């Protein structure tokens, strides 16, 4: 049970961290020069992929 809780804690942490980075990056897209947008978008895409992976890999507690 402790391991399952730890896993859930980690998922919550990762989702929060990734979402807050994505939200901040989205807000920043308007403020940065257009030449930097491609780099930002690539990083955001990678972040979204990792977020999806984290959620897909999470094994809920069978109980």
């Amino acid at each position, binding site marked *: 049970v402790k391991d399952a809780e730890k896993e859930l804690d980690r998922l919550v942490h990762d*989702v929060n*961290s990734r979402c*807050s980075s994505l939200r*901040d990056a989205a807000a920043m897209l308007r403020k940065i020069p257009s030449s930097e947008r491609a780099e930002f978008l690539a*990083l955001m895409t990678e972040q979204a992929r990792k977020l999806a992976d984290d959620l897909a890999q999470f094994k809920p507690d069978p109980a």
Partner: protein
Amino acid sequence: MSRLEILVVEDDPLARKLMEKRLAEHSLDFAADSAAGRQKLEKGKHQVCFIDLNLGPKDDCSGLDLIPVAAAKGVYTVVMSGHDSEKVVEKAYELGCDDFYSKGNEEANVGAVLSRFLQRREKGGPDQLFAERFVTEDAATRQTITEALKYAASELPVLILGPSGTGKTSLARVIHERSGRSGDFVAINCSAYTEDLLEAELFGYRKGAFTGAGDSRKGKLLQADRGTLFLDEIGSMSLKMQTKLLKAIEERTFYPLGSDRPETSQFRIISATLEDLQGLIKAGKLRFDFFSRIHGLTIELKPLAARKGDIFPLISFFSRGGKRLSFSAQAKAQLLAHDWPGNIRELKRVVDLLAAGQEGRVLPETVGKLLRTVVAEAGASDVLTDGQYRYILEHGLAKAADRFVDAAVRRCLAENGGKKTKVLSALGISTRLLYASLKRAP
């Protein structure tokens, strides 16, 4: 806002990019994992460090390990995390972090952090250590302690030298507090015990291990697991105890008295002494391998007489929360002229006596009387220490007297470059006594 030196330890490339944009007006340095972060902190001169809690996939809060490293260097340490469980926040502050924020709304978070850092800087942050934990205004002492604290988070053993009452235990405690070690600070004065008692105190014992061992007892080595073991008056430890302790330090494993089951303890050693350890090695009273194990970093504390500028800051510190003391000019001059052989301990005793008295205004007559009282008290306790008394009880007065003579002869020989004629005249002893002593301890 002035340009700040900032280190960001963050494994997420997008989060790093965002910090780069947000902190563009400052001088930035990045580390993507704990090892790189540690290296940059150790080598760099950062003022602020942002540390992500989890550094890498499946990581378990390894960012916490960097807090003591940053704090030891006086860097304003900020932990940023995707979750703010109370346990983690508490742990981060316990390890010495200055600020903690939950990720999200970074623009406001980072701005608020920098503003808090600047406010603290205006108030003079580093001075807090020297105003609260180790009171000194002496520039050289401050420099010595600041340098020493850079190694607080390392495993390096520390040896603190200095006369009695100069604050060796306080400094050891400060080093422990900044080490990030999760265990306790456990102190023991080696001179206050006979050899057998010291062994039982350090290693612990099982019920029935010796007459009087009614219950099993945990020793100091085990109490200091993941913490710091502070060995005061290390020079008074016997060769047999040094051998046993050396083995325990090297192997991190030892047997409590009467037990056949080994115990393991991860302790860091800080030791202190007022004796000349090189002289003890030469005299065969201190094992060189033991000395090598305990003297990783050596710190020497000056006597109070060599930093008299600390007298009044210390008086203010000791009388805080109590009666306000006001000294006449002559009383001040008397305090400054005194040699303070008992150092800070003696000064504290004077302040305690002043605080217990009726008058808040302190006149020269009061100071003179108190200084005489305190010096007399110290003299009485110097004649026979607890350790000496216990040694007499264990080995008999004749052997204790020989030991006392031998110590005086050794010290005098060392101070006089080994010239026996000078020792004879300085100690006022006979040639027969000198040679008898040299025969016992060549």
